[in-house]
């Protein structure tokens, strides 16, 4: 499997990454290199092997349902570009 430049552009757009034509070409070559690696791995016979969701075969540790966080809004908002009335302000987005 190999990617076209058009597919690379679409992936970049989905990830909101701006790339130039030259970068799109370079990225396509790199991604195609990765696909080559994946193809090699896919050649391995994995019949009868259950897929893993994580590299380690361990289970999620859980947290008791308790409120442990305190209000740190002032600290968090000190580094925000713009705030008002306790809200973070962002460029207008309406769908």
């Amino acid at each position, binding site marked *: 499997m190999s990617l076209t430049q058009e597919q690379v552009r*679409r992936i970049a*757009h*989905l990830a*909101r990454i701006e790339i130039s034509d030259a970068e799109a070409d370079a990225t396509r070559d790199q991604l195609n290199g990765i696909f080559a690696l994946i193809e090699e791995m896919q050649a391995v016979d994995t019949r009868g092997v259950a897929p893993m*969701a*994580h590299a*380690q075969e*361990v*289970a*999620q*540790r*859980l*947290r*008791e*349902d*308790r*409120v*442990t*966080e305190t*209000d*740190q*809004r002032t600290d*968090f*908002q000190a580094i925000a570009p*713009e705030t*008002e*009335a*306790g*809200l*973070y*302000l*962002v*460029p*207008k*987005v*309406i*769908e």
Partner: protein
Amino acid sequence: MNQWEIVIGIETHVQLSTRSKIFSGASTAFGAAPNVQACAVDIALPGVLPVLNKGAVDCAIRFGLAVGARIAPKSVFARKNYFYPDLPKGYQISQYELPVVLGGGIPIQIGQGENAVEKIVELTRAHLEEDAGKSLHEDFHGKSGIDLNRAGTPLLEIVTEPVMRSSAEAVAYARALHALVRWIGICDGNMQEGSFRCDANVSVRRPGQPFGTRREIKNLNSFRFLQQAIDYEVQWQIATLEDGGTIQQATVLFDPDSGETRAMRSKEDAHDYRYFPDPDLLPLVIDDAWIARARAAMPELPLAKRDRFVAEHGLSTYDASQLTASLETADYFEAALAVAGPALAKPCANWVTVDLAARLNREGREIGASPVSAAQLGGLVARIADGTISNSIAKKVFDALWNGEGASADEIIEKQGLRQITDTGAIEALIDEVLAANAAMVAEFKAGKEKAFNALVGQAMKATRGKANPQQVNELLRRKLG
């Protein structure tokens, strides 16, 4: 030839009533000042890691048990990627290929009373996920304000198969699900606050044909809107198809003011979520011991309770269904019955489902906030049954209890002198007085006017201030006039 079949599937976002968020220790309490309950994990500061809340998993297990579903021994959290300012990570943590709850079903009743039909709405799955924050678009000098208090609130998304065939069935399902999640204590069910939100997938087809193209109506937060939105959407789809048009798959919004649905402006890649397993979270493992503990802690479920009410108390299925519409109502009935005595199930059921329900409805109160307690109502029913008061006086006593005029029916009956007069001699004396005072009516009756008799009964009841048994007054009066 003009027949269309309606096909509806529903996805519901149920906000779980945990104290803290699904992946952080921030509070989930409603109504706090903006962003004071949004911690470093919720606002996605770099380097933070999610830790799963056991309480949220407990809720999912309870739900799975309540609907007879399979609880997955191993389920996986996935990232659903999209960009929106109220989703600060750039992805929502959800479950995709391996959800925590699989299958199951919810029984619904369509129609009322004798004609009611039962149907099982099969569930596809239910999965755990986090809620997003809130965007406020008004009045910030052309900018949007973001409140992330809701970000990370645990949700259980419950998905049905496309098995509903009318808006009435869809509403019956939504109501049954709403009652169930409150019953098992996993959601407060507050629809105004967004704790229970439905999306409806709607399509139409000719019977026997494959499914038509569906449109998804998003974020319906009342049963009325659910009904109106589906009815409008169905009419629109049928009209479009009959005019020779085609339906494009789309996400639509319902506008309650116009009663119409309209397509959201959607970009071509809006649904390319690029799900993949979240490397920050290990698989969720639920062992048999955990499921057994959850099962032991489950309350008796609505249908089991309904059937028990029928079998144990001889109630009709209809009455028993009304009484098991919510856990609060069922508890109230059982507490009232405990005071009234086991023989009085039917009158207790009537008082709870008719008189009390009407009064609560009129004053916009929930049964949990009823001024008349279950014990007070049970005491009242007992006094009717043993003949201390008549049914009409009982309504007076009920009002008095509602207004807090006494601690019990007995106290009000004594204090206000409402005890039924059963002494025949006393009633006869009163009737004699009435006959003497209303000679004209007596003459009319004797001239053959039956109406005059009713007027005389009225006068006699008035003279006893409603405390005589009307049946007895009737008989005595007829004998005297006879």
